C-alpha cells in the first residue's frame, strides 16, 4: 500500500490514467472535431458551390412526399422503417433511407422531388461527413460495446480529474506557470496548466457525457420495473404515445401527403423529414419531424428540439404532438436534457462552438502531455515498473503513444483526403471512407511499432503536417473548389474547415521541427550519458 493519501492518489492517477489515455484522447479529439460536424459535412459533400435550393411551397413538399412514398411502396412495401428527408437548403433532392428488416443493411437513394426519378449515385459524394467523428466519439463505430467502452473511459476520466487535483500540490501557486525547454518539468507544467485552466469545462463535458447515456449505464430501474423495455419506460415517463410493437397483420400505409400540412400546422414550422416505422404492418406509425431552426430560442439551454408529430399510418389518426423547443417528462428529464444541451453545445451559435473547440483541444492536449510525461519520466529514471518485461512494455506504450496521439490526428486529416480521392459512385462509399480511416490508423500503429519512437513521432508529425497543408490543394484538384473561392462567396463553413486544417498543419510543422532539432542534437552528441537517449522523447 502507498503510505499517504496523496501517494495513493498519484498511483491511481498514473496507472488508472495510463491504460485509458489513448481511448480518452480519441474521445476528446474526435468529439472536439465533432463540434463542427455540420461544417465538416458541408465541406466533405462539396456543398459550398451548390446553388441554394429554392424554398419549396407546401404543395411542392406534398408532391415530393407523394413521389417518395410511391417509390418506397414499390421498392420496400414491408420494411422495418422508411425515412424520407424532404428537400431543403442542404440538399435539393429527396433523400430516402429504408431497412427491409431488423438487422439488414440500411439502403438509400436520392430522388428527384418532382419527377420521382432515382438520381444516379455518381453525382453525389456519398459520405458520413463530420458524423463519422461524432460516432468515433461516443461508440468508436462499435455500437453497444463502443458505448460501454466510452462509458468506462469516461468514469476513468472523472477519477483521473479528481485524483489529479489531489496530486497537484500547488494548483494556485502554479496556476500561471509554464516553463518551456526543461524536459520533464515542461511536460508536467504543460499537463497541469492545460488541465487546471480548462477544469470547469473538463468536469462539465465528462459528467454530462456520462449522463447522456444514463439509461444505458444505469439500467437497473428500467430492468426491474419495465422488464428492460426502454420504449415503454420512456413513453410512460414522457406521457407520449404507447410503443407500437409489430402485429404481423398486413396493412397498407395510407397516402401521407395530406397529413403533411396537418403536422406542419401543429409544429408551426416546416417539416424536414418523415419516418414510417413497420411500414406494411398494422402497427405502422408515421412521425413527421420539424426542420431544425438554429436561431429559434438559441439563448436557452433547455430542450431545444425541432418538434415531432405522430400519426397512425393506417388510419391517419393524430396520436401525439411534441412542439419544438419543449420538454416533457418532468423536472428530472428536463435537467438531463439541459445536460445534453450543455454537452452538445446546442446553444449560443459559433462563439460558443469555438470556445468548446478550444477547451476540447486543450483537454486532448492535456491527455497527450500526460501520456508523453509517463514515458519521459520513466525513461529518465530507468524505471523497472514491469520487472524483466519493462523494456518491452515501455516499447508498446511508446508505440501506442505515437499511434494514439499523432497517428489519430494523421488519420483524421487522411479521412478528408480519402473523401476527395475515393471515386464517386462506388458501392458503400461512405463505409469505405471509414474503413480506410481505420486502415490509416492501423498503418500508423504498425509504423510506430517498427520505427524507433522518436523517429516514429517525427515521421508521423511530418506526414500529418503535409496532409494538412496539402488539403486545400487536393480539394482544388479533385473538385475545382478552393479556399479563395470559398472566401469570396462568403462560405465560411468550407473556408473555416480548410483554414483550421492549415492551422493544425502549421502546428504539426512546428512540433516536427522541434523534434528534428532534438534528434539532430542526439545524433551529434552521443556522449551525453543517460539510458537510451535516442529512443526517448524528452
Amino acid at each position, binding site marked *: 500500500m502507498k503510505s499517504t493519501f496523496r501517494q495513493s492518489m498519484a498511483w491511481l492517477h498514473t496507472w488508472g490514467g495510463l491504460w485509458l489515455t489513448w481511448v480518452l484522447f480519441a474521445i476528446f479529439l474526435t468529439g472536439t472535431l465533432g463540434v463542427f460536424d455540420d461544417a465538416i459535412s458541408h465541406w466533405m459533400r462539396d456543398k459550398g458551390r451548390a446553388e441554394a435550393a429554392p424554398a419549396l411551397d407546401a404543395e411542392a413538399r406534398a408532391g415530393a412526399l407523394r413521389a417518395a412514398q410511391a417509390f418506397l411502396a414499390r421498392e420496400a412495401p414491408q420494411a422495418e422503417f422508411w425515412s424520407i428527408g424532404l428537400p431543403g437548403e442542404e440538399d435539393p433532392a429527396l433523400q430516402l433511407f429504408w431497412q427491409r428488416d431488423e438487422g439488414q443493411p440500411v439502403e438509400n437513394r436520392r430522388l428527384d422531388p418532382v419527377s420521382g426519378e432515382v438520381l444516379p449515385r455518381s453525382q453525389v459524394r456519398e459520405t458520413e461527413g463530420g458524423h463519422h467523428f461524432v460516432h468515433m466519439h461516443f461508440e468508436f463505430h462499435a455500437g453497444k460495446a463502443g458505448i460501454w467502452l466510452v462509458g468506462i473511459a469516461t468514469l476513468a476520466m472523472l477519477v483521473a480529474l479528481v485524483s489529479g487535483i489531489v496530486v497537484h500540490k500547488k494548483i494556485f501557486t502554479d496556476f500561471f*506557470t509554464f516553463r518551456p525547454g526543461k524536459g520533464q518539468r515542461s511536460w508536467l507544467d504543460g499537463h497541469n496548466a492545460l488541465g487546471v485552466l480548462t477544469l470547469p469545462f473538463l468536469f462539465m463535458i465528462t459528467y454530462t457525457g456520462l449522463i447522456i447515456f444514463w439509461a444505458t449505464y444505469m439500467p437497473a430501474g428500467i430492468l426491474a420495473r419495465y422488464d428492460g423495455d426502454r420504449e415503454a419506460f420512456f413513453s410512460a415517463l414522457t406521457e407520449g404515445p404507447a410503443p407500437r410493437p409489430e402485429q404481423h397483420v398486413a396493412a397498407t400505409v395510407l397516402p401521407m401527403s395530406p397529413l403533411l400540412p396537418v403536422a406542419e400546422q401543429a409544429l408551426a414550422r416546416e417539416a424536414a423529414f418523415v419516418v414510417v416505422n413497420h411500414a406494411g404492418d398494422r402497427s405502422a406509425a408515421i412521425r413527421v419531424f420539424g426542420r431544425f431552426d438554429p436561431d429559434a430560442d438559441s439563448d436557452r439551454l433547455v430542450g431545444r428540439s425541432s418538434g415531432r408529430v405522430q400519426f397512425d399510418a393506417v388510419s391517419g389518426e393524430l396520436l401525439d404532438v411534441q412542439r419544438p423547443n419543449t420538454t416533457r417528462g418532468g423536472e428530472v428529464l428536463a435537467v438531463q436534457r439541459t445536460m445534453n444541451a450543455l454537452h452538445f453545445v446546442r446553444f449560443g451559435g459559433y*462563439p460558443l462552438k469555438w470556445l468548446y473547440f478550444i477547451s476540447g483541444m486543450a483537454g486532448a492536449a492535456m491527455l497527450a502531455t500526460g501520456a508523453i510525461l509517463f514515458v519521459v519520466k520513466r525513461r529518465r529514471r530507468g524505471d523497472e515498473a514491469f520487472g524483466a518485461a519493462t523494456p518491452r512494455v515501455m516499447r508498446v506504450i511508446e508505440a501506442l503513444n505515437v499511434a494514439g496521439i499523432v497517428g489519430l490526428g494523421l488519420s483524421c486529416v487522411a479521412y478528408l483526403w480519402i473523401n476527395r480521392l475515393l471515386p464517386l459512385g462506388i458501392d458503400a462509399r461512405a463505409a469505405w471512407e471509414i474503413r480506410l480511416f481505420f486502415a490509416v490508423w492501423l498503418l500508423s500503429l504498425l509504423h510506430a511499432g517498427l520505427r524507433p519512437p522518436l523517429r516514429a513521432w517525427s515521421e508521423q508529425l511530418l506526414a500529418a503536417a503535409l496532409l494538412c497543408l496539402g488539403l486545400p490543394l487536393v480539394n482544388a484538384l479533385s473538385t475545382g473548389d478552393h479556399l479563395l473561392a470559398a472566401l469570396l462567396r462568403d462560405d465560411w463553413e468550407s473556408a473555416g474547415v480548410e483554414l483550421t486544417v492549415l492551422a493544425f498543419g502549421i502546428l504539426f510543422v512546428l512540433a516536427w521541427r522541434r523534434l528534428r532539432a532534438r534528434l539532430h542534437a542526439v545524433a551529434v552528441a552521443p556522449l551525453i550519458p543517460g539510458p537510451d537517449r535516442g529512443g526517448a522523447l524528452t
Partner: protein
Amino acid sequence: MSVALPVLAALLLCHAALSSLCLAMDRHHAQVFGRKPAAWLAHALRVAGWSLLGLALGYCGRHWGWAIGPVAWFGFLSAAALALVFALPYASRLTGRLAVASLAGGLVLMFS
C-alpha cells in the same frame, strides 16, 4: 451588432483580469518586471483582477443571458488563460502592456 465584438470584449476582459491576478504573484511579477511587487501593488492587482472577473461575468450574463452567459464566461476564461500562460514565458516583457491593452480594448468594446 456584429457577433465578433461581444466575443472580443469578453475575451479581452478575461485576459485583463487573469493578467492582473498573474502579475499580483511574486514569481510572475519578477518574471515580467524583474522584481517582486510592493505589498500595496500586489493587493491592488488582486482587487483589480477579481473585479474584472466579476465584470466579465456580468457582461457575459447581460449579453448571452444568465443561462448561457456563465457557460460562455468559463469558456472565455479558459481561452484567455491558455493564451496568457503559454505566451508568458515567450513574451514575458509584453505581458504588462498586453494586459493594459486588453483592459482598454475590453472596456471600450463593452461600452460601445
